[in-house]
C-alpha cells in the first residue's frame, strides 16, 4: 500500500516537473515584454532595463528556471512580476476561495446526483423526466445566463446574498456561505446532469445483476438491496466521474469567479497568463497538476476500499 502511494506520488512529481518546465519554456519563447507592460506606455529603455534587472528577467533562461526550481524546494514560489506579492502567499489567499466554491459545489452535486440517480433508477417515470430536464437545462442555458438571472433575483431583488465578493470562513460562517452559495450552485448544475445520469445508468445495471436476485431470494428488503448493495457496487464508476467533475469544476470556477468578482485561483491563473506573469503562472501550474495527482490518488484509494477486487494489499 505504501509503495503504491509512493509510486503514484513519484510519477506525479515527474508530471509536475514536466508541466512546469513546458510552461516555463513556452512562455519564455513567447517573449512577452513584461517590464514594458508593467511600466506602461511612457517607460524609457533605461527604466525597462532597471526593472528587468530588478525582476531577474534578464538572466539566461536556464538560470532562471534553475533558480525557480531551487526556490520551490525551499518553499519559495517566487514573486509575481505584476503585484510583487509572493506567489505562495497569493495562492494561499486565493485557493480557499476557489476551494470553497468547488467543494460546496461538489457536495451539492454529489448529494443531488445520488438522490436523483438512485431514485430514478429505482422508480423511473417522472424522475427520469426530471433528470432529463435538468440535463437539458444544463446544456441549453449557458452558465452566464443562469448566473445573471440568479444574481439579479437573489442578490439584487431579494438581497439574500451579496452580489460580489468573498467572505472568509473564519470571519463568519453565514457570510461565507452566502458569498459562495450562488457560484457553487451555478457550478453544480452541469455536474448534476452528468453524474446523476451516470449513477442512474450504473444503478440500473447493478439492479439487473444476478446477485441482486439472489439477495432478494433470501428475503432482503428492497432498501437494503438498493442502498447497501447496489449503490456500493455502482459507486466505483461514479467515483471516477466525480473526480473528473472535481477537476473540471476547478477550471470552470474561473467563469463564476468573473461573474461574482471572487478573487479566486482561476482568476489568478487567467490574469497571470494574459500578462505573462511567469512566477504566478508556474505557481498555478504546479498547484493544479499537484491537485490532479492527489485527487487521482484519492480516487484510486477510495476505489480500492469500495471494490475489494482492486485492493492493493
Amino acid at each position: 500500500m505504501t509503495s503504491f502511494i509512493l509510486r503514484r506520488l513519484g510519477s506525479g512529481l515527474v508530471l509536475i516537473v514536466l508541466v512546469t518546465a513546458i510552461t516555463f519554456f513556452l512562455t519564455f519563447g513567447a517573449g512577452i515584454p513584461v517590464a514594458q507592460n508593467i511600466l506602461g506606455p511612457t517607460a524609457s529603455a533605461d527604466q525597462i532595463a532597471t526593472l528587468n534587472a530588478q525582476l531577474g528577467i534578464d538572466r539566461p533562461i536556464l538560470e532562471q528556471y534553475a533558480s525557480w526550481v531551487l526556490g520551490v524546494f525551499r518553499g519559495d514560489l517566487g514573486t509575481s512580476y505584476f503585484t510583487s506579492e509572493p506567489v505562495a502567499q497569493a495562492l494561499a489567499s486565493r485557493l480557499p476561495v476557489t476551494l470553497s466554491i468547488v467543494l460546496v459545489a461538489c457536495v451539492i452535486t454529489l448529494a443531488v446526483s445520488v438522490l436523483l440517480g438512485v431514485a430514478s433508477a429505482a422508480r423511473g417515470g417522472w424522475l427520469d423526466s426530471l433528470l432529463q430536464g435538468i440535463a437539458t437545462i444544463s446544456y441549453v442555458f449557458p452558465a452566464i445566463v443562469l448566473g445573471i438571472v440568479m444574481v439579479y433575483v437573489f442578490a439584487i431583488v431579494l438581497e439574500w446574498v451579496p452580489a460580489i465578493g468573498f467572505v472568509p470562513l473564519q470571519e463568519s460562517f453565514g457570510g461565507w456561505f452566502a458569498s459562495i452559495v450562488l457560484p457553487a450552485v451555478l457550478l453544480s448544475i452541469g455536474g448534476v446532469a452528468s453524474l446523476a445520469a451516470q449513477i442512474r445508468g450504473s444503478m440500473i445495471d447493478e439492479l439487473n445483476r444476478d446477485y441482486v436476485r439472489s439477495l432478494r431470494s433470501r428475503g432482503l428488503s428492497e432498501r437494503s438491496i438498493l442502498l447497501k448493495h447496489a449503490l456500493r457496487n455502482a459507486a466505483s464508476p461514479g467515483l471516477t466521474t466525480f473526480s473528473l467533475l472535481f477537476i473540471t469544476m476547478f477550471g470552470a470556477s474561473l467563469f463564476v469567479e468573473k461573474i461574482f468578482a471572487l478573487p479566486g485561483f482561476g482568476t489568478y491563473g487567467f490574469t497571470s497568463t494574459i500578462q505573462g506573469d511567469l512566477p504566478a503562472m508556474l505557481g498555478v501550474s504546479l498547484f493544479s497538476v499537484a491537485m490532479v495527482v492527489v485527487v487521482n490518488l484519492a480516487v484510486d484509494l477510495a476505489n480500492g476500499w469500495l471494490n475489494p477486487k482492486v485492493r492493493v494489499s
Partner: protein
Amino acid sequence: MTVYDPSDSVVTATLDEQPATRRAGAFRRLLRTPLGLASLVALAVVVLLGLLEPILSTHDPLFASLEHINAPVGTPGWPLGGDQYGRDIWARVLTSINVSLVSALIGAGVGISVGTVFGLIAGYVGKRTDAVASWVFNLLMTFPALVLVMVLYPVVGSAYQGMMLIFGVFLAPGIFRLVRNLVEGVRNELYVDAAKVSGLSNLRILSRHVFYVVRGPVIISAAFLSSAAIGVQAGLAFLGFGSTQTPSFGSMTSDAFQSIYTQPVQLVWPALFLAVLNGGLILLGNAYRDVLAGPQSTRTKKRSLHEATVVGSATPRTAPSRSAGGLLSVRNLRVQYPAPEGGMKTVVDGLSLDVQPGEIVGLVGESGSGKTQTAFSVLGLLPKEAHITADVMTLAGDSLLGKKPAALRALRGGTISYVPQEPMANLDPSFTIGSQLMEGLVKGMSRKEAKEAILALLDRVGIPDPERTFRSYPHQISGGMAQRVLIAGAVVSRPKLLIADEPTTALDVTVQAEILDLLRELQRELGMGVLLVTHNFGVVADLCDRVVVMKQGELVEEGSVRDIFHRPSRPYTRELVGAILDEQTVRSDRPADNASRKDDLR
C-alpha cells in the same frame, strides 16, 4: 451459416448483414424518435445557415455603423439589430456559426482521429503498447484545462484554430478508451481468431470486423466531442482569449454581458444559437445512443423495485378446490411479457405442477422451454413487466395469488429459497461471504447466534475452513466453493421448498457430483421439497422423484422418474430421453451473461 469459403471469412458474411441492417435501421429509428428528429432538424438548420452565410449575410460582421448602435430587432437591413458598437448582429451570428462549426470540426476531428487510431492500435496489439498508451491518455484526460490554456496561449495566441487543434488532442482520451475497450473485447471473440486462422492479415481483420463494432459509439462520441469543442471555443472567447477580429458566440456573449441591464435582448442571440448547437448535439448523441442500445432501454420507462406478483386467472380452468394439496400447487400458470412490436409474448402457457413435502421434482426442458420462468414465478422474482396469472398457486397451504410484494418477501429465505446457476455472479463482490449470508438472518436471532449457525452450515456443506471463507470476498474463492456457500445461504433458515435452477451446470464435472450429493443429503436431513430446474437428464435420474417436462412454455408430460425414463408417452419426451448419450453432456445453451439472463424471453 454459409458454407465455409477460405477466401473469405465465414464471419464476414454474417457480420456484414448485421451491421448494415442495424445501421440503416438505427438511423431510421433515430428519425422516428421525437428527440432525435428535433435535434437533427435544428442542427441541420443551423449548419445550413452557416453554409449559406455568403448569401444570407447582410453586412460584413466587423462593419460598424454609428447610427445603428443598439439598433432594435427588425431595423431594415439589420434583421437582428445592432450591437453596442453598431455591428450587424445577424451577420455576426452567421459568421459565429461558422466559427463554431469549424471549431467542432477541428476539435472533434482531431479528438476522434487521435483517439480512434491509438485506441485501435492499443486495443489490438495490447500489452506494452496498450499500457503506455493508456498511461498517456489517462494523463491527457486529467490534465487541468486552465494549465493547458496557460501553456498554449503564448504559443497559439489569438488564433482559435490552433487552440482547437491542440484541445482536440485533449478531447481524445474518452474516444481512446472507448475504442480500445471495444477492440479488446472484439479481439477476444472467437470469430476474429477464426479469421486469423484463415489467413487474413491483421489490418484486414481490424478494418472489417472491429470497425463495425466501433462505429456506433464513435458516432455518438463525435456528437459529444463537437459540443465540447464548441463550448471550449466559446468559453475562451468569452474570457477574452480570442482575436478581436473574429466574431464568435463567446465574444458576442461577452459583449452582451456588458450591456446586460440596458440591452438584455442582445444576449438572447448568442445564447440561443449556442443552446441549439450544444443542446442539439448532446441530445442527438443521447438519442442515437438510446436507439443503438435497443428498444428495451427506451421502452421500460417506469421501473419498480418490486417484482411482479401473481394474480388469479381471470378465467380459471381449474376449480380452486381441486388442488393436489402438498407443498406446492400450481395450476394453469401463464407468464407473459410485452413484446417490442406490441402485444404480448407468452413464455409459459398453462403450466401445472405439484411438489409434495420431501419430494424432489425435476423441471426439465430445452432452452426456451420456460422452466426458469416457472421457477421464478413461484419465487416471485420476475421483473415488473411480467404478467403472471394462475388458477392456483399455493405454497404450504398459503395461496400466493394476489399477495403483496412485502408478503412474498417474508416467505423468501424462510419458507421458500433459491439456489442459482452461476455461483460467482450471484454473490455481491463488495461484501464478505459472511456478511452477505448474515444479512438475511439477523432479524430472527442475535448476531452471535447467526454467525454460529452459518459457520456450522458452511462446515456442513463441505467448506474446509469456514472461518476463513466467512471473512473472504467472493473473488477469493473458487466456483465450487461459491456454490456451496450459496446452498448454505439457501438452507440456513430451513426452508420448506428449495428451488434450484441448474445448480451444477456452471461447475466443473468433478464438482458437479459433489454438489448433487450435498443437495441430496441436505434434502433428506431437512425434509425439504425441491423443485430442480435442469436440462440434464443425468441429474434428473440421479436426484429426482418426479419429472415435469416442458416445451415452449407448455407442459408436455409429467410423471415419476421411472415412468418417464422407461415409458415416455409423448414423442417429445421420447426424443429427449433418447438424446441422452453419455455422461459427457455438452452444454447446449450459451454461457449465461448478466444481461441475457434477465431478458430471457424464451
